[in-house]
């Protein structure tokens, strides 16, 4: 099955009609409150049982710059970005480009008060008299501006055939039942919807028809899922520094901690500290991990840069910590509100000198939840900083998801010795089990044998300062052994091998959606492509097997330099010649069409017929 969420019945497809299978883009100015209208439209479609997904393409700005919200609805359940056929143009600054981008046969819902809109006789244009519809609104100033966005919500919903009561319910859900807000917004929506019904003649083919494909699903962002998963993983200490696009992860984490781990008398079973910078954030997290708490920070690329020195200390002193990197586009400040996968190589080997770190690669909001708790198990089992690399697209956008599965195993707290269990010959870094992981003790233990001195300086297996060559070599060799043990702790890749495929694709994270959709198109066209979605580093044996099974392995990733491809080539040097890179980054999530075009030459190179027409 192409899409794991798809439990759909096929929609009716009368001749010429486009039912529940198209994309909308809403162009507004940042800071005008359009997000409420956009998410309510999204939620309305979801509540009609129709698969839907929204992507916010927004500027690094508080107010005024253009922002676009993409809504894709797909009866088959596809969620990748797709060229929109319906444009809502409410931003004077982008009016021309928004209109120009529409394909022939597209639909333009235009704020009729905007002057100078270009004429397109190959698109259906609906003009919304925003001022007129707002006449009765008593709100003033900024609030009135916010409410104006409710006009396109009403009009678009009506044009698509979304009933008014569905929009009302979605609005209530969006406002979390806050009556005052619903009461302020809904009358505008209703007026616009009824105006549209009474005035506009439907001249386009796009409609939504009810389905039952979303009954068991929820709508959630990846950051929210990650925060929730962290709480179920036992996170009790959080330190962070605000940075887009990770801020909402910590906001969610904190609100779930308030909700789920606060005593009846108000005593928190947690501490969240907004640090002075990311250096301090990771330092605090390591301090708490050393003391025995499950501790976590969340950041993005620039923060990862600042965490490099401490990560090396955490690796070498062997302190558990969980670091979420919600990737944006770098280098430097880069494109702070766009998505990418450019931190993989850096995070994997963060720090000077030798050192590698376990990296989780969630590819869905369900996995953001699952890895949210599982990352703590690996951090404590392996006694080392663990990274979870997600991205802005997954983290900040709203996705359909199955209800999250409760952790199906008890917490794995790793090798911790306490009290009388601490042997006379306890040595903090003594590899008694041969797996590279030595038992640790925690501060506060009354057994005097418990004490050891955590340090980033060279040390022997009793944690005592040492510059002896053999101590250094033995210790770092043990750390390498430990990393091999970690291979077995990471989540296995999701592998879908097509026995007829000569080309295998390896991907990670949120690009899977466009790749899966492209595969379905390719399959329909008679081309066979296998897929392995990596979910963690270091890799295990499954990756080698996959590469061996295919003539050509193509690593698709959202960066310029093919970072994951480089890692795989160096981990599988004998197979490197058959591992190829498709690396592309422009800040926007991939479309299936892009993937098809990129894979075509690789399919051709294996002797298969080239895909000439991508669908």
């Amino acid at each position: 099955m192409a899409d794991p969420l798809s439990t759909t019945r096929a929609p009716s497809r009368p001749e010429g009609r486009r039912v529940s299978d198209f994309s909308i883009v809403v162009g507004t100015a940042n800071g005008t409150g359009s997000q409420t209208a956009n998410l309510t439209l999204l939620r309305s479609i979801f509540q009609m049982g129709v698969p839907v997904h929204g992507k916010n393409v927004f500027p690094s700005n508080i107010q005024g710059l253009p922002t676009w919200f993409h809504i894709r609805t797909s009866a088959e359940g596809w969620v990748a970005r797709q060229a929109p056929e319906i444009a809502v143009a409410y931003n004077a600054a982008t009016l021309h480009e928004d209109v120009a981008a529409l394909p022939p046969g597209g639909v333009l819902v235009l704020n009729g008060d905007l002057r100078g809109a270009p004429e397109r006789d190959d698109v259906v244009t609906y003009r919304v008299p925003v001022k007129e519809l707002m006449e009765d609104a008593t709100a003033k100033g900024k609030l009135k501006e916010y409410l104006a966005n409710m006009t396109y919500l009403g009009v678009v919903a009506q044009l698509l055939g979304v009933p008014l009561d569905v929009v009302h319910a979605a609005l209530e859900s969006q406002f979390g039942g806050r009556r005052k807000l619903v009461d302020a917004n809904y009358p505008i929506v209703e007026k616009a919807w009824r105006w549209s019904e009474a005035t506009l003649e439907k001249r386009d083919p796009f409609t939504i028809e009810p389905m039952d494909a979303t009954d068991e699903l929820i709508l959630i962002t990846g950051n929210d899922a990650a925060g929730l998963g962290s709480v179920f993983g036992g996170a009790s200490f959080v330190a962070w520094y605000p940075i887009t696009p990770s801020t909402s992860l910590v906001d969610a984490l904190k609100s779930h901690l308030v909700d789920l781990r606060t005593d009846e008398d108000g005593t928190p079973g947690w501490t969240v500290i907004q640090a002075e910078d990311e250096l301090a954030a990771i330092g605090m997290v390591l301090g708490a991990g050393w003391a025995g708490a499950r501790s976590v920070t969340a950041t993005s690329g620039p923060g990862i840069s600042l965490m490099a020195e401490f990560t090396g200390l955490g690796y070498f002193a062997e302190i558990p910590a969980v670091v979420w990197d919600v990737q944006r586009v770098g280098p430097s400040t880069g494109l702070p509100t766009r998505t990418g996968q450019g931190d993989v190589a850096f995070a994997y080997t963060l720090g000077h000198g030798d050192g590698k770190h376990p990296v989780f690669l969630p590819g869905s909001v369900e996995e953001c939840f699952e890895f949210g708790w599982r990352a703590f198990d690996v951090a404590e089992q392996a006694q080392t900083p663990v990274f979870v690399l997600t991205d802005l697209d997954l983290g900040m956008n709203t996705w359909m998801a199955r209800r999250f599965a409760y952790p199906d195993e008890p917490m794995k707290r790793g090798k911790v010795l306490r009290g009388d269990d601490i042997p006379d010959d306890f040595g903090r870094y003594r590899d008694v089990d041969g797996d590279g992981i030595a038992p640790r003790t925690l501060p506060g233990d009354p057994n005097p044998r418990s004490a050891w001195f955590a340090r980033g300086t060279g040390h022997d297996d009793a944690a005592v300062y040492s510059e002896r060559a053999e101590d250094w070599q033995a210790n770092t060799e043990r750390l390498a052994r430990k990393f091999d043990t970690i291979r077995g702790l990471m989540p296995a890749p999701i592998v879908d091998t097509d026995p007829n495929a000569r080309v295998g694709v390896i991907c990670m994270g949120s690009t899977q959606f466009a790749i899966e959709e492209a595969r379905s198109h390719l399959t329909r066209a008679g081309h066979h492509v296998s897929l392995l979605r990596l979910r963690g580093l270091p890799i295990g044996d499954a990756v080698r097997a996959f590469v061996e099974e295919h003539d050509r392995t193509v690593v698709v990733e959202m960066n310029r330099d093919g970072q994951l491809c480089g890692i795989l080539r160096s981990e599988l040097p004998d197979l490197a010649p058959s591992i190829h890179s498709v690396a592309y980054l422009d800040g926007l999530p991939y479309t299936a069409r892009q993937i098809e075009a990129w894979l075509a030459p690789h399919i051709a190179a294996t002797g298969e017929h080239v895909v000439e027409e991508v669908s």
Partner: protein
Amino acid sequence: MTVPAARQPNVVGLTKADYGGKPSTLCKGCGHNAVANQIVQVAYDLGLRPHEVVKLSGIGCSSKSPAYFLGMSHGFNALHGRMPSIATGALSANHALRGVGVSGDGDTGSIGLGQFKHLLRRNVRMVYLVENNGVYGLTKGQFSPTAEDGLRLKYAGTNPFPPVEICAEALVSGCGFVARGFAGDAKQLRELLKAALSHRGTAVIDIISPCVAFNNEDDSRKSYAYGRSNEVPLEDIGWVPPQDDIVVDDHEPGETRVIELHDGSRMALTKVEAGYDPSDRGVALTRLQQAEDRGEVLTGLLYFDDQRPSLAEAVGLGETPLVELSEERLRPPREALERVLDRY
């Protein structure tokens, strides 16, 4: 038969030797060794339980010294200038622990100035010692940020910049316990350490600790000779455990003032300087400036205020440290997850 002092058990049954650490690898005569010795003495005198203490440090000569005391306590030798963040995390995760941090003038005043000030803002309950010698020792003699304007050193020449005044930085960052000691004045240092260990939040003691290798010329303000001849104590200090009565020594001149500390112990401050009031931050800043102008080394308790809650108090932590929460408490039940998901 009398038991030698080092083997005489204290109230918790430990000898002074039990509070020792590894042999020092610092230079003979280094002020830092004297500080480590006084920490051992004070821990023994107070009957500290080693497992209730964590030792923390940054990087530098000073930061090596936690290895030389409290060998039965856990310790963390952090990054250069980043001990405060490790301490903040550790003492949030387990706020039943007492922190004893040792830093240096470079570690605190240069690379770590930001973390130092934010530690004080948050008022993490710990003793923060700055072993201040005005020079970088491990890298062989560069000026530290606390080197005085005009100081001449063999390696570095003449310092053209004004010093970072650690105590003034602590004062303006909201620290409620700001003191200065001198490694050569053991008695005063012991009393300051005892009082600092009883403080509610972060207690800073800036200890002038001469570097015998790179900064011990007689005219350097961080030298033994300068400290001995120019030290100006603000008061004589006597720390008194909670259970004991205060007996004011008749021989001490001036007015005696008793300050109650957070754990019920008390500190008796006998003024040697007329009119000094350690509860006035403005006065403390003024006196620091005057001392600077006169070339004096002002020692003693400069400022005390225990009204501000510690970090653990400010965030409302209860009696149970976060590290002792059970798995049942850490992982909410299945029903809780379902309840949350119902909202989406």
